[in-house]
């Protein structure tokens, strides 16, 4: 059965759900588990890149270390004939950015003479809740593309999490992919190890694309990709070093600091919601006439302090026309949060209209606190009605 495209990741996402590792970090982990990874040196300066090329040997390849796919097409992977050329190329790549991400480091590695390429990957099928192991004889290209255009070249298998992927099963997959003899044994061995890395590090994805056989008959992982489940990170303290997310905006980082999920968007209506689903629905409804300036979900930990900080954060966004608060008091003590909202507004008066819809336990008390603090309160049971009120207000103030 060919894998569905949703199970595979071809690296087109600019922001990701989980902690992506840099190629050199994933490469180190792969090597520790016995996967053959070529010797590489990582550096942030061109003269060192030259010395690196002298060490690993030329011709060399200079590879931008950025957390996005499509590096090759964007000029982030280039071959160099000599150490001197390596330095020049490293200088150029280190000044560039790829899909909006500045390149801070490059990897220098000896160029391999490739006889054949493969794709090896392990990921998770969210529906069955099982690991999926994928092997393809079309390496070096997007596996999603291969699955669409040449499904017969992709072998995939759902694995029982309790028994894992044993060597015999890996061997069966290699044979199913049409490999034989030593090649089938070698590929199966690496696939088996890749599954082990996936399990050991709580990975959402572990991928080698391409794994190559060189003209000398060696097998080498020429790329290394891993994404680690954020929720599993506590088991891997060593991986936290690189957990800083270079893709988050300053406001998004601030959101993380105060303990909420804030996603910056390019619209003009700020949104604060007590839950993720409700926040998405609110974005959809506001999207009828305006564009959301952000997504913000407080989670279950609402307090006076938290909503004070939330107001400070949301109002920092430039170009805001209004802020809409959508608060459903389930387990959350929203009457406490309301005090934080009005305390912030008293200390930092603003001309931007703030409209709140709050329902649930102690709602009358919540409405009173908010109204006294200058917040427009809508008591309707449907979010749509409250948003319509907000739209009216914006029409009037135009």
């Amino acid at each position, binding site marked *: 059965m060919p894998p569905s495209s949703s199970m595979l990741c071809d690296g087109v996402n600019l922001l990701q759900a989980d902690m992506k590792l840099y190629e050199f970090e994933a490469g180190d982990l792969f090597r520790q588990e016995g996967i053959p990874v070529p010797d590489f040196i990582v550096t942030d300066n061109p003269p060192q890149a030259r010395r690196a090329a002298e060490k690993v040997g030329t011709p060399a390849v200079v590879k931008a270390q950025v957390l996005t796919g499509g590096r090759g097409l964007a000029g982030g992977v280039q071959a160099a004939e000599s150490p001197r050329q390596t330095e020049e190329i490293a200088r150029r790549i280190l000044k560039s950015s790829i899909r909006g991400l500045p390149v801070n480091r490059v990897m220098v590695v000896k160029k391999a003479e490739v006889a054949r390429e493969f794709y090896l990957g392990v990921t998770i099928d969210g*529906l069955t809740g099982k690991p999926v192991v994928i092997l393809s004889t079309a390496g070096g290209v997007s596996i999603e593309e291969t699955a669409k255009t040449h499904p017969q070249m992709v072998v995939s298998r759902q694995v029982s999490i309790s028994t894992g992927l044993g060597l015999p099963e890996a061997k069966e997959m290699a044979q199913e992919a049409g490999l034989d003899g030593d090649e089938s044994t070698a590929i199966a061995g690496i696939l088996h190890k890749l599954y082990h890395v996936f399990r050991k590090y709580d990975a959402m994805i572990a991928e080698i694309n391409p794994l190559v056989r060189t003209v000398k008959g060696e097998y080498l992982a020429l790329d290394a990709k891993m994404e680690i489940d954020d929720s599993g990170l506590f088991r891997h303290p060593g991986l936290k070093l690189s957990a800083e997310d270079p893709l988050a905006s300053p406001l998004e980082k601030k959101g993380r600091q105060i303990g909420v999920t804030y996603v910056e*968007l390019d619209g003009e209506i700020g949104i604060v*919601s007590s839950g993720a689903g409700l926040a998405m629905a609110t974005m959809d409804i506001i999207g009828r006439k305006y564009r959301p300036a952000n997504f913000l979900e407080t989670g279950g930990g609402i307090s006076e302090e938290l909503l004070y900080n939330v107001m400070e954060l949301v109002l920092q966004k430039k170009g805001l026309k209004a802020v809409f608060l959508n608060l459903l008091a389930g387990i959350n003590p929203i009457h406490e949060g309301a005090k934080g909202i009005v305390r912030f507004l008293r200390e930092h008066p603003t001309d931007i209209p703030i409209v709140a819809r709050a329902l649930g336990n102690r709602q009358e008390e919540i409405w009173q606190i908010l109204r006294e603090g200058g917040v427009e309160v809508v008591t309707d049971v449907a979010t749509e009605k409250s948003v319509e009120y907000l739209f009216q207000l914006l029409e009037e103030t135009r």
Partner: protein
Amino acid sequence: MSILLNRETKVLVQGITGRVGRAQTKWMLEYGTNIVAGVTPRKGGEVVEGVPVYDSVAQAVSESGAEASVFFVPPAAVKDAACETIDAGVRFIVVVTEHVPVHDAMEVKDYATERGVRLLGPTSAGILTPGEAKMGIMPGNMFQPGRIGVISRSGTLAYEICLNLAAAGLGQSTALGMGADPVAFTSLSDLLALFDADPETDLVVIIGEVGGTQEEHAAQSIADRMTKPVVAYIAGHTVPEGKRMGHAGAIVQGDMGTARSKINALQKAGVAVAEYPGDVVKLVQKKLEQYYPAQ
């Protein structure tokens, strides 16, 4: 009748001595839930809101006859607690805990499936049978007894839609949260089948959201097997690709998992899909008229 939970169900609370466990136990008891025991390792002998606390699940089950359990245990402890609970003979578990490692969720799902045990979550808001009982954190005052089954991936959005339904006189048979993690213990398709078999449910409302392929897969089983009408709302048409919206599973990748792909799949299966949450009520009314003309 209802699915999975009623006023008779003997409920165990795990993590009952924690801040959240304690507070929620009080709310669940006030709602009428038949809580018979609590478990927190090394806290055996304590009493929380009149509920006896035990050190182990086996002990709690043998003393109280608990049949179902709700988890307020820390994420790192969920896997072992779930296996212990399954081994003790509990047949239904609701995991409210957020941030359960996905590999642990895979292991628990595998262990439970082998033994025929049903779980909701991780990150489930819980399950609530209006007027009877609730396990989890759903606020009781947002639901009314009735004949609509509700399955939601998000807690707050379930409250919003059930409030709207209740305002129109449409109560619920049972409302439950399946969670929005990358791996859900019980699939949307399986939950739909439970409501389809429940004689007290006339129609099912699905509250979905972007990310994953639960809705797409469920559309297939609705087309193949479902006998009752289904109405859906999918949150997140305005979510940009690659951005994660609070829920671990709410991330759009490629063409699957988008609001558009879910809506198309569901509509093809005959499901009435609301553009906005407030539209759910009129679609429910319309479907009920079609399926159950003037009774």
